[in-house]
């Protein structure tokens, strides 16, 4: 895969507070890459550095191998879609979309053509002469996307573009963004704090926290094999419990030995054990690896969200069948659904404990 953007050793602080710490990242041509993390993790700042709105304290940004670290935004071959749409309120939709092309002094017929193409692409035909403030949020964001794409950037930066929309519209726009991405075939760098959005759309997810990359990979590997407790907790709901890795293929949780598929830990190493709620099944007491009392059952439509207390730990379980609150149940797990992780070494990985 060809690299289009390369971030080398990027650091950035605001008022002495480090936001990004010595970050390295390669971004490939035509991939849909998502920077995912909680607010304050540095993802937006990183995007602003790529867009040229911030200068890193250290490090370089390479575009097609050329150093663009100190190039102003107007001279970069990439465009940004902002969270707040940021349309020009004094121009109508067509003039908004044509803004970049007019600056490039393209001829009228060409601009007209491109504007129509862009409007079709974002499903906004017929809105040419509307003013931005007469459009809904979703429509404004479509125009903002059209306004960026019409200039044929090689990379499109999207800074939580759907953050201000409600859930249903957001899901609809996610599908449309993927369609647009397929049609124009350029690199999308997408920033979001919404893990389901990231899992739905991305080719590759970069999970960030406290200015460093926690994990990168395709959505499935991020979800199935989180590398630390932060990622496990941030991506979907997880049960994270202390365990001891007695030896290869055997972990002890709450005094119970459970077979697993993980190897390569020191004997008796203290570890974090991660189990996804949907991987636990409720069985008769006595079967399964533990017994607990059903504390809460909440119907979620597609499944029941069940809490089971075992000692001082409360398990979260997603089940197709309800359980009787107050009853005693057993929990079972398949060995391959147990994730074993090293305990965090640095404070950077410990944000979940503060939450």
């Amino acid at each position: 895969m060809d690299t289009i953007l390369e971030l080398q050793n990027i650091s950035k602080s605001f008022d002495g507070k480090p936001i990004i710490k010595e970050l390295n990242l390669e971004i490939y041509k035509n991939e849909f890459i998502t920077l995912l993390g909680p607010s304050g993790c540095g993802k937006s700042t990183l995007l602003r550095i790529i867009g040229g709105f911030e200068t890193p304290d250290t490090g370089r940004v390479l575009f097609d191998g050329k150093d663009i670290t100190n190039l102003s935004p107007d001279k970069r071959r990439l465009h940004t879609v902002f969270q707040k749409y940021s349309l020009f309120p004094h121009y109508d939709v067509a003039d908004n979309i044509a803004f970049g092309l007019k600056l490039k002094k393209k001829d009228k017929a060409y601009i007209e053509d491109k504007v129509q193409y862009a409007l079709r692409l974002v499903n906004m035909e017929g809105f040419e002469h509307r003013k931005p403030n007469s459009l809904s949020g979703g429509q404004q964001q479509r125009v903002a996307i059209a306004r960026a794409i019409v200039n044929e950037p090689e990379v499109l930066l999207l800074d939580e573009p759907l953050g201000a929309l409600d859930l249903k519209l957001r899901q609809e726009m996610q599908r449309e963004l993927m369609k647009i991405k397929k049609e124009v075939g350029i690199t999308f760098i997408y920033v979001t704090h919404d893990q389901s959005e990231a899992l739905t759309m991305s080719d590759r997810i970069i999970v960030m926290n406290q200015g460093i990359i926690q994990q990168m990979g395709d959505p499935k590997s991020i979800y199935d094999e989180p590398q630390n407790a932060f990622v496990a907790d941030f991506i979907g709901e997880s049960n994270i419990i202390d365990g001891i890795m007695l030896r290869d293929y055997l972990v002890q949780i709450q005094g119970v030995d459970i077979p697993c598929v993980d190897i390569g830990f020191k004997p008796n190493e203290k570890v974090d054990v991660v189990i996804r709620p949907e991987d636990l099944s409720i069985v008769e007491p006595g079967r399964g690896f533990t017994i607990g009392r059903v504390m809460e059952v909440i119907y979620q439509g597609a499944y029941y969200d069940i809490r089971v207390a075992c000692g001082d730990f409360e398990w979260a379980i997603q089940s197709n069948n309800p359980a009787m609150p107050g009853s005693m149940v057993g929990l079972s797990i398949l060995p391959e659904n147990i994730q074993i992780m090293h305990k965090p070494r640095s404070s950077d990985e410990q944000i979940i404990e503060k939450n």
Partner: protein
Amino acid sequence: MNRRNRELLASPYFIWSIGFTVIPLIVILRYAFTTAGGTFTLENILAIGNAINRKAFLFSLEIALICTLLCVLLAYPLVMVVRRLHISRRAFMLFFLILPMWMNFILRLLAWQMILSSNGILNFILQAIGLKPLDIANTWAAIIIGVVYDYFPFMMLPIFNAIADIEEDVIEAAKDLGAGPLTVFTKVIFPLSIPGLKSGITIVFVPSMTSFVVADILGGGKLQLIGNIIEQEFTRSSNWNLGSGLSVALMVFVFISMAFTIKDDVVREEPELARVEGSDKPDRRERAA
């Protein structure tokens, strides 16, 4: 509180404006269209066309136009600088700008008189650094300095408010799409500042056109604005009919010129954010996020 009761809250101002705007206006109109003997005439109005009055009128127009233009040219660069300041320093700058307005208007003009007079502070400084003294006192330039000094804040503040309201994201979007600093100004900032510019022009142009005190004090009484002539008709000549006639003529002119300036504002209807979906007012995104 129902609608009727709520409207009662406006009654003090309503009574005030009847007593001190509507009735005086009727009185002035009556004076303007009658002779001293009380018969109907248009002569008081048409007197604006005679040589002395016309000269004063055109001179007033010139002063007002130049003053307005200078205020605009001074305001934009300043606003662009203040816009970028940190919020606390911004407040200080604005405070600094408004501070002189807390002092008496006449007092400030007298101070300018002392600065500009032939053996005043300005010439003292010029001579001290080896330059030739200037003969500004009682000239056209002195009046311009006076009106610009007095009315500048009224131009700057509305423009500043309009520009401060522009979202930083919108400006960044323009840069992102390839606009350099000048293009950002001409294509985004300036067009969006026009409502502020219009109110600035309205507040500066009209008073600088009709004022007479500035010309009295800084023009030395030699240069007459139309305001000075009207004032004299009321005070020295005691010809209220002529004074009223000239006032009405001036007022009509101001009405017409303002109609051109603010026409768009009245016509333009802002469809008040016809939002359909979702909560569209996200919090200002934290830059560090």
